Each structure stands twice: as C-alpha cells, then as structure tokens.
C-alpha cells in the first residue's frame, strides 16, 4: 500500500514578454495556475497539499474559479474550454471549442451562468464592480467606467512602472489596485475619488535582479497579495502589512530528471530539471531554497553526495560543485571529449566518478581524467561500486558487462544476458550485495553481486520503458519509475507479483526516484512536481 504524503508542486509556466494569469477562490483560500498541460490548485495555508488537473490535451493557459467556488473553467492553447467541478474528483461538466487559437483569458459572469473567453491580445484588463482598468506594455494603466466604457481616469505616471505592466488585480474592497511589471516591482495604487491612481507602496522583488525577477502575474485575495516572477517564484505578501518580507514558494517549471537524498540534518532532497535548476526540499517544510551554481548550463545527469554535486548536461563537460552547508562553492569543469550519457559516483570515495559515453567510459578522479576507454559497443548506462573496484556497464543491446577496475584499466569479468532492450539504469544496493538493472523494454532484474546470478526476476509490470530505479536504505526494496507514469515497489525477498503499484504518479512519466528513508519514496517526473509516498508493505 502506498499513500501520497506530500507534493512539492511545480511553479506556473512563464514566458518572457507575456503576463500569466493566476486566479483564486477567497473561500477556500486557494490559488490556481497552469503548468504545461496541468492546472494546479494550491492551498495558501497548506502549501504541501496540491491538487492537479491533467485532462487538457494541450498546454493550459488560464483557469478561473466560478464565483460560487463550485466549478473551475480552464482553457488551453487549442481554444478549448473545460468546466469541471472542484469536488468529486474533478468531474467534467462541459467541454467546448471556443476559439480556433490560444485562449488568453476567460471570466465567469457573477451568476455562474456564462463565461466570456478572449484570445490573442496585447493588453490585460480586470473587471470589478463598476470600474475596470486595463494595463499594457506602454507602462500605463487606464480606468474605465464599466457601464459606459468611457475613460474616467488613469494610474499616475509619477513613480509609475518603468517597464511593461503584465498583470493587475483589484483589492477586495475595490479601493486599491496591484500591478506587476517587467521592471521587477509590484506597485499598490490607491484609487482616489476622482479616479486617479497614486502609488501607495512599491514592492521590489527580493532577488538577484536578473531577467528571472521580472514579475509576470499577480493576484489580490483576502489578505494575501501574490506575485509571480518569470523564474517561477511565487511571493506571498500580507496585504495588511506590506513591509513584512514575503514568503517565497518556488519549485521547478520543467521536467525533473533526477533526485538525490542527502543525509544532512535536516535531510535534504535535491531535485534537478533539465533547464539547469537545482532545488532543495525538506520533508514537512517543502521548498527549502535553490542551489545557485554560478554556472548556467542544462543538466541531464546528476549525482550528489554530502560534500559535492557532479552534473553533466548536453555538452562535453562534467561539472563538480562543492557543497558548503547550504550553498554551492566553486565549480570545476572537466571536458571529457564526448557527451556523457550516464554518471555514477563511487559513494565511499566520491572523487572517483565513472561517466559513460557513446562507445565507452571515462574514469575521473577529482577533476582529472584518469582514462578514456573504448569498449567497442554502444554504451547506455553505467554504475560504479561504492568502493570503486567494480563497474557495470549496460549496452544498447541489453547486455550487462561487469568489469573490475584497477587504476586506470578495466578488465571484463562477466557478460550478463537477460534484458531484451537497451539498459536504461543500473544501481548497486546500499549494502553492495546486490545490484538492479532496468531496460527500455519495461523489465527490471535484481542480481546477486558476488555470484552474478539473478535474484529477482519477472519484474515486468510496467507498460513502457523504465526511466529510473532506487534502492531502500536497508536494501530490502527496489522501486522503479517508468514512462507509463507508474512507480512500482518490489520487495527483494518476495516474488515480483507481490509488488505495490502507484498509478499515475506523474503525468507524462516518472523520471526521478529516491528513498528518503525506509518507508518513504520520493518521485519526480515530467509534470515538474515531486511527490513523497509512504509505503506500508503487506
């Protein structure tokens, strides 16, 4: 039995030069935003509880609660609007194709009977009561009378925004207005009797000041002011106390392709996505900060131990970053001459790393290339034993080659043939007595390290390629994650048919897996979310 314990949600998808729309429901104190094809519902007072609606076939653009809070209408780039219930497992009420192109915004009528949707626009507007304001890339905000449409005033340009204004939100009492802009600040305006808006307070985004700090979305709900930056960080301010520092919520925007658990105190879960972002999470708290690597590069493979992180991307380089407490220290870059396909660290002596490339492997010691060995077959995955004396290399043909390592040479000890597809991942168990391998043909196998005999077979319950594999700290369980969105946990002493299956763990596929402890499995996937599951063996 596996139960969802925590979800570390993704952040809204953002695009440079375009605002995003976030909406919310004052009654349940929740906010709604879109990431990829999913609509995310987050509860502001319970940030670890997240609900995801994944029924759109195309990237979702906007979602809004109905005024009575019972329904949500969401729209996507294909012009389709779906109306679904907030309770009862998101049952679909209606779906229709409204426009032939991207829908930029939609609104409910106050009686919940009608919805208006608009597409492809350059400005945004917000209707509230008897007045409405439009804001635009010309840095101005204009007030209109909602009934006649006449221009009745504008936001003062004194102390105004210095960049395009991307979004606007009225306060619940209709006296104040919040705007966010590309100039990386949010401003609260007071609308006076003669309809001129004067800046009451400017909230600057606490960040490094780069492009990622441009603010693209905002929402004023009850006492909360929410602003969203281009980098995906959500800032929660208290409307009653604008001087108080905001609460930061962040996460990943793109596919999280690897997870590592560090045994520090508190136990930190590190996640990396292919856009090069590494985020720290702590169970029970959630977002714990980003790791600033001082190097902007994409990440394909990541391996981490307490003192350092080794990563590789889509170029020929392997990066080693030392970890000092919470932050990244200096980075060393090693050019290995070929694109790395898989990366493994010898856990007991982490300066030794094994990197697999197209036709062979490279052994690294610190930042030195010890040797580059051409193995004569197309290599896919690799793993090095914690003490650095043995390595297992998997090939495109499904064969596992076991080598003993002496200095800079490899001697082939055995070739194991059981898999019927390219090997995707190989992992040693923490006690090194076993190793597990998985392939693109949905099968996983557990082997005994000493005898190299099959220990657990018939682990064939996935319906698509296995992307990742993790061992429990006591070496009793193996978890596999696949493109079919499921995570399956097997107990090594029991037959494979006794497995525990978590269906639909991540929309789009599971790409990262790790055990936080004996009973908790952490998984990450294409939906940019991380979920912690509590497992109770039967």
């Amino acid at each position, binding site marked *: 039995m596996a139960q969802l314990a925590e979800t570390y949600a993704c952040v809204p998808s953002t695009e440079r030069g375009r605002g995003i729309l976030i909406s919310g429901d004052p009654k349940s104190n929740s906010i709604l935003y879109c990431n990829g094809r999913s609509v995310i519902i987050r509860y502001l007072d319970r940030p670890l509880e997240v609900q995801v609606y994944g029924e759109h076939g195309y990237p979702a653009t906007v979602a809004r609660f109905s005024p009575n809070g019972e329904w949500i209408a969401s729209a996507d780039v294909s012009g389709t609007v779906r109306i679904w219930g907030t309770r009862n497992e998101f049952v679909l009420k209606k779906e229709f194709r409204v426009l032939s192109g991207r829908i930029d915004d939609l609104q409910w009528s106050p009686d919940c009977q009608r919805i208006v949707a608009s597409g492809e626009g350059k400005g945004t507007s917000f209707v509230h009561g008897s007045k409405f304001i439009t804001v635009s890339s010309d840095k101005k905000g204009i007030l209109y009378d909602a009934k006649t449409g006449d221009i009745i005033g504008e936001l003062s340009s004194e102390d105004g925004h210095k960049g395009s204004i991307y979004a606007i939100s009225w306060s619940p009492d209709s006296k104040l207005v919040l705007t966010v802009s590309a100039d990386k600040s949010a401003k609260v305006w007071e609308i006076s009797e003669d309809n001129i808006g004067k800046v009451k307070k400017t909230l600057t985004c606490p960040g490094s000041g780069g492009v990622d700090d441009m603010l693209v979305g905002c929402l004023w709900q009850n006492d909360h002011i929410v602003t969203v930056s281009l980098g995906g960080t959500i800032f929660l301010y208290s409307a009653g106390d604008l001087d108080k520092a905001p609460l930061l919520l962040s996460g990943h925007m793109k596919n999280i392709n690897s997870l590592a658990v560090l045994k520090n105190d508190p136990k930190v879960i590190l996640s990396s996505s292919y856009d090069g972002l590494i985020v720290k999470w702590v169970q029970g708290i959630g977002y714990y900060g980003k790791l600033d690597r001082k190097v902007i590069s994409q990440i394909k493979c990541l391996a981490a131990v307490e003192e350092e992180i080794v990563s590789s991307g889509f170029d020929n380089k392997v990066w080693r970053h030392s970890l000092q407490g919470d932050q990244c220290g200096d980075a060393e870059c090693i050019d290995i001459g070929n694109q790395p396909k898989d990366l493994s660290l010898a856990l007991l002596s982490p300066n030794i790393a094994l990197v697999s490339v197209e036709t062979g492997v490279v052994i690294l010691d610190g930042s030195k290339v010890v040797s580059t060995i051409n193995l004569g077959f197309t290599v896919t995955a690799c793993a090095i034993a914690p003490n650095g004396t043995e390595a297992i290399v998997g090939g495109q043909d499904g064969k596992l080659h076991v080598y003993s390592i002496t200095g800079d040479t490899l001697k082939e000890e055995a070739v194991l043939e059981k898999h*019927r597809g390219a090997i995707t991942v190989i992992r040693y168990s923490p006690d090194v007595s076993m190793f597990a391998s998985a392939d693109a043909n949905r099968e996983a196998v557990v082997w005994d390290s000493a005898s190299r005999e099959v220990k657990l077979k*018939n682990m*064939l*319950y996935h319906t698509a390629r296995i992307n990742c594999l993790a061992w429990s700290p006591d070496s009793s369980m193996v978890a596999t994650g696949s493109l079919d969105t499921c995570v399956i946990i097997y107990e090594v002493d029991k*037959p*494979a*048919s006794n497995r525990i299956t978590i269906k639909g763990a991540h929309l789009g596929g599971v790409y990262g897996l790790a055990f936080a402890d004996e009973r908790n499995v952490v998984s990450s996937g294409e939906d940019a979310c991380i979920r912690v599951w509590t497992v109770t063996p039967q």
Partner: protein
Amino acid sequence: MGVADHSKTTYMELQQKKVYRYVIFKIDEKKKEVVVEKTGSPAESYEDFTASLPENDCRYAVYDFDYVTSENCQKSKIFFIAWSPSISRIRAKMLYATSKERFRRELQGVHYEIQATDPTEMDLDVIRERAN
C-alpha cells in the same frame, strides 16, 4: 497434431470430479500428440502452478480457479492458458500456436481462455479480474 486419450480423460477428471487443481500439457513431437506433463492436487496454489511452467518453453494448461463472488457465492471457473513466453524458441511458439485450436476443441466446458507471453500476463490478479 493428435490429442492423446489420456489428455482428454485427465481433463474430464479435473472438470467433472475435481481431482486436480491444474493440468499441464506438452506437445510430444515424436508421437505428434498432446500429452499430460504434470498434474497438481487440489491443495496446491496458483504459485505452485506458475512455478511448474517452464520459463522458456511453451505449454498448454488448464487451471480450476475457486473464488467467492460479491454476493458470497462459492464459484469455480476453468481457465485454459496458452503459455507462450516471448523468450522461448520460435519453433516452439509456432508449434503450440498452430496446434492450439485442435487441442482446445477437445476440452469441453472451459470458461475462459488466456494467452500469456510473460508471467505478468497470467498473474493471479488477471485471473481474478477475468472471473469477476
């Protein structure tokens, strides 16, 4: 491909007298007929049955599955399983596939048929779902 008389009578004993939990048949190439390879007593479990099937060779099997329905009735259904693992030799798969119809016709009273190409396709959950 013929069917040995012993195969037919063994099946009848399973069906009518419930003498066996399962019967495993194999094709004897020399005699060109389907013969009984192994039988299991009613006390044996589904695990014993799956363990008796070879990992990389084809077989035919009949399994008597007992279960309790949602209305609390004790029921029993007979499953015919064509075991044809993808790792077995192509010749074996061809032989068993072409002879299956001829053999199947001799077995009257089979409720469900399953073709399994790996152990997950004849998992107990699959059997249970088909029966309900």
